[in-house]
């Protein structure tokens, strides 16, 4: 008997769910039907346009402006989520106060809420005569600020949920060691705590960014959708589809898809780097 077959039998013996072949086959076909085939269709369809056609589609002024708006608002919103997400995670992990569990539970609401509900609510609240909009000295609804507010809402849980377990595992010993060695609180924060949560916070940021880039439902209500001003890329895709302009729609979709891929790749790569260096095996 060859060495390889012995190894495989051993691996099989340890599995709890029987039927490695069957379960792998199922997962693969499931993944292919739902993810791989639809996504590759975008590539295939766009490649039929040729490089020139693709560039022509995405360099239309309205498309450029929509893509730029989508990228900048997503970036700003996820940066804000990064800062406040880390802060929220810190408060939830390090302090006990009445209602902490409730707050913790509420944080998942943006995941569960239908995005259109969020959009309508925000649009009403932040309208110039809405409850919140009335109090603000500047316009929120139908501006970039409105888009950013919506994107902050839907991206909020990512950073919190990813940083939270890291903070829980951090323990106090590292901070105590730092304090005994003479470091100030600020130094401890910068040199000891931030480096530990940086990979997690970065993952959360990247996921929030990816999500914000493609967000549609919550944004369209508050954005006002004025061409060249508050029209986001996913909306332009919708409009192109409605006008049967599949070339244009898939070209923009491809840009968003590649951006998401790149971000996911960067997250995994940076985590792999961090793990290789100092993770506890």
């Amino acid at each position, binding site marked *: 008997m060859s060495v390889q077959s012995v190894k495989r039998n051993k691996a099989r013996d340890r599995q709890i769910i029987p039927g490695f072949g069957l379960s792998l086959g199922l997962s693969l076909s499931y993944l292919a039907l739902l993810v791989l085939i639809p996504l590759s269709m975008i590539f295939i369809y766009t490649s039929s346009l040729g490089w020139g056609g693709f560039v022509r589609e995405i360099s239309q002024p309205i498309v450029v402006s929509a893509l730029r708006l989508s990228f900048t608002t997503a970036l700003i919103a996820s940066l804000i989520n990064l800062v406040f997400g880390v802060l929220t995670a810190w408060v939830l992990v390090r302090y006990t106060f009445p209602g902490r569990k409730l707050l913790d539970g509420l944080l998942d609401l943006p995941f569960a809420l239908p995005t259109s509900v969020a959009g309508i609510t925000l649009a009403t609240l932040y309208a110039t005569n809405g409850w919140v909009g009335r109090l603000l000295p500047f316009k929120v609804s139908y501006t970039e600020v409105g888009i950013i507010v919506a994107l902050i809402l839907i991206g909020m849980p990512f950073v919190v949920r990813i940083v939270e377990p890291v903070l829980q595992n951090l323990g106090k010993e590292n901070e*105590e060691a730092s304090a*005994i060695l003479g*470091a100030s609180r600020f130094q401890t924060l910068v040199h000891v705590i931030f480096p530990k949560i940086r990979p997690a916070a970065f993952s959360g940021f990247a996921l929030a960014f990816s999500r914000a880039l493609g967000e549609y439902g919550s944004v369209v209500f508050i954005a006002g959708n004025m061409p060249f001003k508050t029209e986001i890329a996913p909306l332009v895709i919708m409009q192109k589809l409605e006008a049967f302009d599949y070339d244009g729609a898939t070209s923009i979709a491809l840009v968003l898809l590649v951006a998401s891929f790149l971000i996911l790749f960067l997250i995994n790569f940076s985590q792999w780097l961090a793990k290789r*260096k*100092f*993770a*506890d095996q």
Partner: protein
Amino acid sequence: MSIELRHISKSYGPYQILKDINLTIQTGELVALLGPSGSGKTSLLRVLAGLEYADEGLILFHGEDLTNAPIKKRKAGFVFQHYALFDTMTIRDNIAYGLNVKRRKDRPSKQQIRERVDQLLHLVRLEPYGDRYPSQLSGGQRQRVALARALAIQPHILLLDEPFGALDAKVRKELRQWLRHLHQQVKMTSLLVTHDQEEAFEVADRVIIINKGQIEQIGTPSEVYENPVNSFVYDFIGNVNQVRGTISDGLFTNGSFRVPVDNTEQADGVAFIRPDQFAIRTPDDIQEAGRTLAATVTHIHPSGSIIKLELIGQDEDQNLEVEVTRREFDALALSKNQQVFLEARKVKVFTVN
């Protein structure tokens, strides 16, 4: 730098974990704080370091009152049981940390820091590992890094919280001896917390036995081992046989086993006899019948140079443990189920409340 604690008390809610602790540690001394888990020994160490504050009492470092001083002013080096190394930094950066965070005017130059780190790496014998990360080192190596890091700021005192507790037996033994040598080199006032009496006895100049937040006994290892002041210390330090009996008219009695005691009041008592303080006799050569217990050998552990015997006394529930050297054992030619007589050379009787 000497340390003096006066009337230190501390409670967590209803639990009083430190009760009126008084003790003095001389400059350059290595003292072990020994006690079972939950005895308050770690809390005492944390109060000294400034990680926690005492409810009452005074802490003097070289006569200076630092009871409520912030952590930084105490200049203590602290070594944690689980190392608490910064795992996002290299070993060099870990050791240099305490120097790098100093205020600009106090901070040594980069060159000086590098030299200091080199010296410390040499001291803990980890020169080749400076550029690695803590996760790439073994437990024993990590704890040596933690020690180097604590020493880098030239602390006035060194506090070690169960520093070898997370290591396996062999590494533990090596590190213990190494720490003893290191202490002889640097002569720093040190307080070591441990629940392992072997460790405390091997490393420390003096041992403090602590139980339920109170100091039971302070002394050199041999003082504590030879003359435990009460039944707790007797029981906690090393193996001991306990024979229950009654005290009356200045005599402790269990059957034919009789030992004179100072106490003249009527009371229940327990006689403590160490396993190596029994001589095994045959009926012919019993010297003091009143100090002799009849017993039956139930088990023989022939491991190493000392043979451990388990025996059962005349009362069925009286288990006894005896240690004899291999030479004695061979001369006696003992076997299982054999009836023997145990003559106690040294007995200490405590009354039971």
